[in-house]
């Protein structure tokens, strides 16, 4: 243990003397006396003194680290050095969380400088360690302004190392961790922006630091990282080549020395998803879908292995569709991921991110309810039922229209929407402007300018959805009347509704408009592409003053059921046929054989039945 640490302290470029270094090696924790004598030496200048004090504090901190944690860090470092993915995965997904629960549930992990001796001062491992350190601070504790700035600097160091080294770096990390790096980077950006926009709660120190903050967590710097990773990895070229069915050699040719390495390829892909998310947070829903142009949304994608990434992708894509008024596409997106989450439940309940996944799923059930109220669909009864179980009351209000609808839309939208951010900071660098904001009595700095709803970007987006929903508020009532007739005079309908005839005709035009939507068509290139389609089973037309109505119905579907059962029977038959026949002389074994056949068949058949039931 002692030898590597010698090397490491020797590399430190401060002016601590030889004795001090030796002491730090062996006797950490029991050295009070020795240090006292050092302190009394009068010729030590202040800088040295501070360095020593810091050093001693680190020693004390080091001494407090439990031995198992030290062992864990050494082991973790070794695994990273060797690019041993299975070992890294174990340390990352299980070890880190285990020791967090045990020792650091309410406090920070030891600082990177403190554990540096354990890892030979390996700068790369220390960056990765800090990545975990700050992530833990953000998730379990309350980050202070130093944490916020330093976690940004650390992320920049990591991305600099990856992007600006000479040639691709040799490091390898598990996909899950790479996703978490990108995910956490954007999460910290988002919480920083939210925190930054609250001017009033800042201390003087914080105001000064924010004034001098410069590019820290600026939208440009975050986008820059994501675009750089995408370009360096040539991930879009990779995806296109892959879809074109090119051979691995051809693909390697296309993507170059960075793109062939899994680390860069994964980071490139996750950066596309990261961009999708950042654009949504900034309110740019078209650009969000545009960056996804090359990504095929299907569950055969190799990236479904990282569950959290798949779930996030569908959540943000679905949300974009809502804001683009493409409710059928949003519904389709949510249905497909919610079914997938349900099927995969047995696997990801074990994942340390299970909580996060089920929270996102719950928000998607809420968004599904919103879409289904605005554009009723029968795409998937199973998901619709779960959504109604959870949000039945709100769904009823939204679907019925009228004045109860708005509060229900608001409640579900604010619960389920992404955590929107403002792209720019309040003017911290302009002390006159910032004090003007601070002196305003209203908690909302710009209420005088754009109205209250503009202070919080989520409310700005909510007001857009609400204006949309309220425009359609008479549709459910009209629909329920039209369903009863095949033709009906406009005047009579207006009388039923106790409404002005001309106004009602205008509402009918709104209803017609609401029953058409741009929808993605199979084979369409990119997520923005689509064609106008009818979304309602109730169709009508006005001939001067007479409304004619036609309703379409869907015949019962039998084929799926028969196909599934035919396949099942075929499998059963094959299994039976392939069983060795019982030998006559061993009659006593026959029942056992039969039982084993039966149990085998039952085993292979069971999951199929469950899936069938889900889809039926």
């Amino acid at each position, binding site marked *: 243990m002692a030898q590597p640490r010698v090397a490491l302290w020797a590399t430190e470029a401060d002016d601590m003397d030889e004795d001090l270094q030796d002491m730090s090696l062996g006797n950490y924790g029991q050295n009070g006396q020795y240090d006292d004598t050092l302190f009394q030496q009068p010729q030590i200048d202040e800088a040295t003194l501070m360095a020593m004090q810091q050093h001693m504090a680190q020693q004390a901190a080091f001494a407090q680290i439990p031995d198992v944690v030290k062992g864990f860090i050494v082991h973790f470092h070794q695994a990273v050095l060797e690019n041993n993915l299975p070992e890294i995965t174990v340390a990352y997904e299980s070890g880190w969380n285990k020791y967090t629960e045990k020792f650091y549930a309410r406090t920070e992990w030891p600082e990177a400088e403190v554990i540096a001796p354990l890892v030979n001062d390996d700068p790369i491992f220390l960056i990765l360690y800090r990545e975990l350190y700050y992530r833990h601070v953000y998730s379990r504790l309350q980050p202070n302004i130093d944490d916020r700035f330093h976690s940004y600097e650390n992320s920049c160091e990591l991305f600099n190392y990856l992007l600006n080294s000479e040639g691709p770096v040799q490091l390898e990390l598990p996909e899950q961790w790479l996703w978490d790096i990108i995910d956490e980077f954007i999460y910290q950006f988002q919480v920083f922006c939210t925190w930054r926009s609250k001017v009033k709660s800042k201390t003087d120190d914080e105001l000064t630091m924010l004034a001098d903050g410069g590019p820290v967590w600026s939208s440009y710097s975050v986008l820059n990282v994501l675009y750089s990773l995408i370009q360096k990895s040539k991930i879009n070229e990779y995806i296109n080549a892959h879809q074109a069915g090119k051979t691995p050699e051809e693909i390697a040719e296309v993507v170059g020395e960075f793109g062939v390495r899994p680390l860069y390829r994964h980071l490139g892909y996750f950066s596309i998803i990261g961009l999708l998310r950042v654009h949504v947070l900034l309110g740019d829903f078209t650009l969000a879908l545009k960056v996804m142009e090359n990504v095929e949304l299907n569950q055969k994608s190799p990236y479904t292995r990282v569950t959290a990434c798949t779930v996030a992708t569908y959540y943000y894509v679905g949300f974009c569709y809502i804001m683009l008024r493409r409710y059928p596409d949003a519904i389709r997106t949510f249905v497909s991921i919610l079914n997938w989450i349900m099927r995969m439940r047995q696997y990801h309940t074990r994942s340390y991110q299970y909580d996060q996944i089920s929270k996102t799923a719950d928000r998607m059930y809420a968004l599904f309810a919103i879409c289904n109220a605005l554009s009723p669909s029968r795409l998937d009864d199973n998901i619709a039922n779960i959504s109604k179980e959870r949000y039945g009351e709100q769904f009823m209000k939204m679907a019925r229209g009228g004045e109860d609808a708005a509060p229900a839309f608001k409640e579900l939208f604010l619960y389920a929407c992404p955590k929107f951010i403002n792209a*720019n900071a309040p003017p911290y660098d302009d002390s006159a402007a910032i004090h003007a904001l601070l002196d305003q009595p209203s908690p909302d700095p710009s209420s005088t300018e754009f109205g209250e709803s503009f202070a919080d970007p989520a409310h700005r987006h909510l007001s*857009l959805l609400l204006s949309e929903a309220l425009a359609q508020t008479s549709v459910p009532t009209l629909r329920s009347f039209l369903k009863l007739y095949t033709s009906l005079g406009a005047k009579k309908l207006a009388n039923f509704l106790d409404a002005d005839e*001309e106004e009602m005709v205008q509402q009918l035009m709104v209803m017609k408009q609401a029953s058409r939507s741009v929808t993605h068509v199979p084979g369409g290139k990119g997520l923005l592409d689509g064609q106008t389609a009818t979304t309602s089973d109730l169709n009508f037309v006005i*001939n001067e003053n007479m409304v004619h109505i036609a309703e379409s119905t869907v015949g019962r579907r039998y084929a799926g059921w028969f196909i599934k059962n035919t*396949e099942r029977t*075929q499998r059963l038959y094959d299994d039976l046929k392939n069983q060795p026949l019982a030998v006559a002389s061993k009659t006593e074994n026959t029942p056992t054989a039969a039982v084993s056949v039966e149990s085998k068949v039952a085993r292979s058949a069971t999951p199929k039945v469950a899936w069938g039931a889900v889809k039926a």
Partner: protein
Amino acid sequence: MAASWVSPPTRTELIEDLVSGVDRYNPSNLSILEDYLYHQIRSQEYDCLANLAILKLYQFNPDLYNPDIVINILTKALTASPLPDFNLCISLLDERPINATLDEPDPLPSLLPTLKRLNDLLYKCRFPAFWEYYQSDELENLRDNYTVECVGFEDAVREVAIRAVKATFTRISADRLASYLDLNGSELTEFVEKKGWKMEENVIVIPPNPDNQIEATVVQENIKLAQLTKVIAHSAGN
């Protein structure tokens, strides 16, 4: 969105590169996009994604913000109803501190509620109310300084109404259509003729189109060959 919305045929290659590449973030390209907007205004063209790229640059560079451009973009987006263009633009208008770099007071805060209301009236198909509000004294500023510059603005609003009428009606009374289009008798006759529609005794016949043809149907199940591959493959194996 239809392909022409994602990429209008009138978009030049230069603009396409800006809209689809990372150069869209470069503030020095702003003037190209702004010139393109003025071109759209003069030539009755429309390119939503290019205009959103301008708003994106304003979002990231508040010092470049130009309220007149924003108002022009919103005016153009109004006539895309019922597509969500107007709301997509609003989504990008971040909260901004009072801008001291402008020489004149920012006209946007006072015009924004007006534009939103116009958008709301169009989206709710309340066309007669739209015209009444649009022509009111209150909106003189908007008309005289902005929509007058936008060539064919009123005709573009009429097209919004026409889209709604075409989808909903097979026949519509001339009075009703006139109120939707804000046209009087002879103007309406001319308009209807230009469209090639027939007028019969004060009723206008809307030609059949996919949205005003209704038919009660029973959607029957369609089995695709792919669904049967396993079953067929199995039979072949035996």
